[in-house]
């Protein structure tokens, strides 16, 4: 007897739920780890890019800064200017050809691709976040005698972080879905698993409906979580009066 749409859905879920779960897990790990590493990289490059080259510093220091800045511009241009799917092919297959004996797994390559891609976007986001902080904040810190480094880490970055947090959430959500293109290098993430399942029974519509639903639920959950974190970061809109210090005259 011919199964209807829902029966096929149920059947596929029953048959492949382990694989779907495994694929979801890989997708999650890929996007979480890759995004976090990318954020780290983005912060590092964003900070380098917005560091002032003071005319008073020594020649070697100036040269180093110029070089670092130049390199980061090249990196950002390359990884923002090419599709992730192409980067994946180049890094996975290309590196094997270029360096004989290099044993890189597709999963490792996938992590590298996500990291480098996120890092490039994140660097620009961080730079923008730093630029968005009022110059007065830096001057206030300078006037206290704080170093550029201390100012950055105690004053500027905490504020920039809050400003760019929604954008960071955006990047993560994008990554969650973008990891699907990594099926081209054979990483067993959600899309890759679905392709296999769909091809077995030729039930493309049903299989991809399931996957679509999984992606949707994942994104939905993470969006709520990010919103919640954002709310938490805003802090309370009221404050406690330290009554012990109110002067009684």
């Amino acid at each position: 007897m011919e199964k209807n749409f829902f029966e096929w859905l149920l059947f596929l879920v029953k048959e492949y739920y382990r694989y779907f779960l495994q694929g979801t897990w890989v997708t999650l790990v890929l996007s979480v780890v890759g995004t976090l590493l990318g954020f780290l990289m983005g912060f590092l490059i964003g900070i380098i890019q917005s560091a002032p080259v003071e005319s008073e510093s020594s020649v070697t220091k100036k040269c180093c800064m110029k070089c670092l800045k130049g390199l980061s511009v090249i990196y950002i241009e390359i990884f923002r200017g090419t599709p992730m799917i192409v980067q994946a092919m180049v890094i996975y297959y290309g590196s094997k050809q270029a360096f004989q004996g290099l044993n890189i797994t597709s999963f490792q390559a996938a992590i590298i691709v996500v990291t480098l891609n996120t890092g490039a976007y994140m660097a620009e986001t961080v730079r923008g976040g730093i630029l968005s902080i009022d110059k007065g904040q830096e001057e206030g810190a300078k006037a206290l005698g704080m170093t550029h480094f201390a100012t950055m880490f105690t004053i500027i970055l905490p504020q920039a972080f809050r400003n760019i947090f929604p954008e960071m959430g955006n990047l993560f959500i994008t990554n969650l879905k973008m990891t699907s293109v990594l099926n081209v290098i054979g990483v067993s993430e959600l899309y890759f698993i679905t392709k296999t399942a769909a091809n077995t029974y030729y039930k493309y519509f049903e299989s991809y409906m399931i996957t679509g639903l999984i992606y949707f639920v994942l994104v939905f959950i993470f969006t709520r979580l990010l919103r919640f974190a954002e709310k938490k970061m805003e802090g309370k809109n009221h404050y406690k009066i330290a009554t012990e210090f109110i002067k009684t005259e």
Partner: protein
Amino acid sequence: MENTRETYVQLEENKKAFYIDSEKLTPIIKVEHLKKSFGSHEVLKDVDFKTYKGDVVCIIGSSGSGKSTLLRCINLLETPTSGTIRFNGEKISVQPKQVNQYRSNVGMVFQSFNLFNNMNVLQNCMVGTTKVLRKNKLAAKQLAMKYLQKVGMAPYIYAKPAQLSGGQKQRVAIARALTMEPEVLLFDEPTSALDPEMVGEVLNVMQELAKEGLTMIIVTHEMAFARDVSTRTIFMDGGVIVEDNAPDVLFNHPENQRTKEFLSRFRNG
């Protein structure tokens, strides 16, 4: 009228004698031949300026006369195009390390407060002492509380800057500068962003500090405050110091024509 002039001359003589006697000839801050240009626009043209310990110097003048730039140059927030700045006789170079050390001795209060938005009032007053002077948390907190109490902001230690009024913010900013126990405190139009009522609360704090003998250089548009509180008033115009006199003399018997013009509105009003 003539009397005041004579008293001033006498006072100046006494002052000079005092400095020679106590060998306190070294000014706390001495600015020599200071020039600052932004591109082709010359904002400061050869400014010479001295401040001794205990001086309360008010700098007045119209907008664009270079008052704020002079103050920012003193704190090296702007790098002077040429000229030297001496602090207790020692020439300040542009080496970042020395600049930071110098800035920790010379506090600054800004027109726009510049409180750190990511910290509450107490943290704002502890960041300088812990990060720059490397004091421990307890000592830093005691210092912060001491000065917050002085400016009357101690009850608000848990408030974030965004939750305070302008006057309150400025008082916290003054407390923050004071926690560094600076030898000189610079004020860059500290009341220009405040409404008249808040101006009063900030000026009261500043007057209190003046009484205690803190050395202050104040760029201000508050003429009455300059007249009543300063020990010396400087009138700047077009990037030069036009007149540097006791407030009594400068406000009542200005020597320079341009000073007269500038003050005419205030004196008539």
